[in-house]
C-alpha cells in the first residue's frame, strides 16, 4: 500500500505540499523497490542489484574466467610432454582425425541447440526449451561416447594413463574436458526435469542462460584442444 505525505494545510489556503508515493519512489541508492523484495521473494527478474547486473551472471563469468586458468595449465602441460611418448605409438599414429572431427562437429552443433534453448526460454516457451535442452544433452552424450571409444582404442594400442608422460598429459587434459561435458549433461537433464515440473525459482530464462554459458565454455575449450592437440602435429 502506498504511504503518502498527507496534506495538512487548511482547505482555504493554497496547497503547497507534495504527495510522493513512497512505495515506488527510488531510494538513496537509486533502487526502485520491487514487489515482494522486502520479504525476500524472487520476482520474475530477481532483485535489483547495486551494480544493475545479475549477480548470478557475474559469478558465472568470473568462474569461467578462472576455468581458463585450469585448462590453460592442462594444455600447457600437454604441449610440454607431447613429445615424450617412449614405449607407445606417437600421437600422429594414434589420433583418428576423422572420428575426432565428427565429434568436434557434434559438440559445435550442441552449442547451436543450446543457444536455441536459451532463445526459447527468453520467449517463455517451456516446451521448446525442454526439447532443445534434451537435444543438447544427447549431442553431448554422443561426444562423450566418441571420447570413451577413442580412449579404449588408445589403450588397446598400448597407450595407458601411466605408459609415458604423453599418455598422462593427454588423458588428464581430454579426461578433464570429458568430465566437464558429463557434468554439463547432468545439469541439462536436471534442468529439463525442473522445467517440466515447474520447479525453477526466480528467473527461468536466466537459469537456462547460466547452464548455456557453461556449455558454450566447454565447447570453446574443445575448439582449442582440437586444434592444438589433434590437428597440429608434434
Amino acid at each position, binding site marked *: 500500500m502506498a504511504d503518502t505525505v498527507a496534506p495538512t494545510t487548511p482547505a482555504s489556503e*493554497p*496547497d*503547497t505540499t*507534495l*504527495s*510522493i508515493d513512497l512505495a515506488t519512489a*527510488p531510494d*538513496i541508492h*537509486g*533502487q*526502485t523497490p*520491487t*514487489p515482494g523484495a522486502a520479504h525476500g521473494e524472487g*520476482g*520474475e*527478474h*530477481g532483485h*535489483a*542489484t547495486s551494480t*544493475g*547486473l*545479475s549477480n548470478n*551472471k*557475474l559469478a558465472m*563469468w*568470473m568462474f*569461467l*574466467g*578462472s576455468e*581458463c*586458468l585450469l*585448462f*590453460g595449465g592442462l*594444455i*600447457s602441460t600437454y*604441449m*610440454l610432454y607431447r613429445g615424450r611418448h617412449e614405449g607407445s605409438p606417437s600421437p600422429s599414429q594414434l589420433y583418428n*582425425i576423422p572420428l575426432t*572431427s565428427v565429434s*568436434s*562437429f557434434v559438440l*559445435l552443433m550442441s*552449442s*547451436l541447440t543450446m*543457444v*536455441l534453448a536459451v*532463445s526459447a526460454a527468453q*520467449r517463455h516457451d517451456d516446451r521448446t526449451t525442454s526439447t532443445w535442452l534434451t537435444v543438447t544433452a544427447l549431442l553431448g552424450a554422443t561426444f562423450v561416447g566418441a571420447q570413451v571409444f577413442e580412449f579404449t582404442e588408445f589403450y588397446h594400442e598400448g597407450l595407458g594413463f601411466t605408459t609415458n608422460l604423453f599418455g598422462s598429459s593427454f588423458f588428464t587434459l581430454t579426461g578433464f574436458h570429458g568430465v566437464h561435458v558429463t557434468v554439463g549433461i547432468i545439469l541439462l537433464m536436471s534442468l529439463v526435469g525442473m522445467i517440466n515440473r515447474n520447479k525453477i525459482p526466480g528467473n527461468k530464462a536466466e537459469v537456462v*542462460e547460466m547452464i*548455456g554459458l557453461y556449455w*558454450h*565454455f566447454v*565447447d*570453446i575449450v574443445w*575448439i582449442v584442444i*582440437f*586444434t*592444438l592437440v589433434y*590437428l*597440429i602435429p608434434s
Partner: protein
Amino acid sequence: MSSETTETERQISHAVDNAVEPAHSVDEPAHGDHKHGLTDLGYVKVAAVLALMTALEVTLTYIDIPGGVFMALLLSLMVLKFWTVVSYFMHLKFDNPIFTKLFYSGLFLALGVYCVALLTFQFFNPS
C-alpha cells in the same frame, strides 16, 4: 489544488527522478537480463559458418602446405572460432562490457602465465 502548485510538484518530482535514477524496476530487468542476441535463424547461420571453419581446419591437415603457413592458418581459424562462439553464442557482443572484461582478463592472465611457463621450459626453442 491550484495549477501553480501542480506545476511546482511536477518540477520537483522531475528533479528527484533526475537526481536519483532508478536502477530498474520489476518490469525492466537489469542490464544483461533482457532478451538480446540474434534471431534463431541468425544463430543457425553462425553455426553454419563455424561448421565451415571446422571443415576448413580438417582439410588443411590433408593439404601439403609449408609448416609456417599451416600453423598460422590453423591458429587463426581457432581464434576466429573461439571469438565467434564467445561473442554470439555466449552473447558477449550484446551484453554488458563488464562480462567481457571479466572473462578476457581470466583468459589473458592464463595465456600470459602459461606462455611464461612454456618459455621457462624452453618450449619455443627450436633446438
